[in-house]
């Protein structure tokens, strides 16, 4: 991983900090690729032993399930995937002043598709738990990912790309 090793004073330094978790699109691609590899692994295991193969990955709730229209077909109408959110404040039960903020926040999350990016946060912990690793280990790695990715999402909203 990382780039080609660079010779620095006779030693070799891997300049991997250039793109390990460099920006949000890297995180998205990595999570999608992990999803795909786990899905293919599950499909391969099921093909080898259809009777009693262990189930370690379920497509439900993962990022891939957004793109499945049943029987592993991609959506024929792509515009259903695009965000079309709207938010409103209930004038009778809600507190108008504070609800305006949450309604605005939800509207921004829905219309710009940022809520899709929020699905990235919990992904690694789910993977690690699904394949049967101890929950403490999954929590530790997951919180590491959660913290870094949350920072990237906030930076992305504020207009920085790294």
């Amino acid at each position, binding site marked *: *991983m990382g780039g080609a090793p660079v010779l620095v004073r006779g030693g070799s330094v891997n300049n991997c900090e250039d*793109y*390990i978790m460099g920006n949000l699109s*890297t995180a998205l*691609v*990595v*999570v*999608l*690729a*992990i*999803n*795909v*590899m*786990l899905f*293919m*692994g599950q499909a*391969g*295991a*099921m093909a*080898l*032993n259809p009777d009693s*193969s*262990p189930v*370690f*990955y379920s497509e439900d709730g993962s990022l891939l399930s957004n793109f499945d229209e049943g029987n592993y077909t991609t959506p024929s109408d792509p515009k259903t995937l695009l965000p079309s959110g709207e938010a409103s404040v209930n004038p009778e039960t809600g507190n108008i002043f504070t609800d305006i903020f949450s309604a605005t926040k939800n509207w921004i999350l829905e219309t710009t598709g940022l809520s899709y990016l929020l699905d990235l946060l919990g992904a*690694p912990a789910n*993977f*690690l738990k*699904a*394949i*049967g*690793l101890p929950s403490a280990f999954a929590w530790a790695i997951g919180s590491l990912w959660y913290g870094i990715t949350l920072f990237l999402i906030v930076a992305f909203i504020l207009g920085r790309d790294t």
Partner: protein
Amino acid sequence: MVLLNTTGVLGTVIQYATLDLTGSLFLTLLGVVMLLLLLCLLFRIPVEFSAILVLPLLLGLMAYMTEFVAIGGVFLIYLGVIVGKNFFFK
């Protein structure tokens, strides 16, 4: 279908390795996987290339033995990271 056919040469090797060396089929097969990775390290082959051999082996072992699911799952996650990094950002 059976995981292991003990009539062939390799099947006999695995059977007697289990009986006389390790005591459990899981440890024998884990040893085979580790041996493959060790060979790759020994000959300075990048671990990514060992996936060509190890991935089909691990998939078969995962399909028949639940003990391999965690190891194979970590391997698949590692491969996913490699695929994501190298095929989209190179």
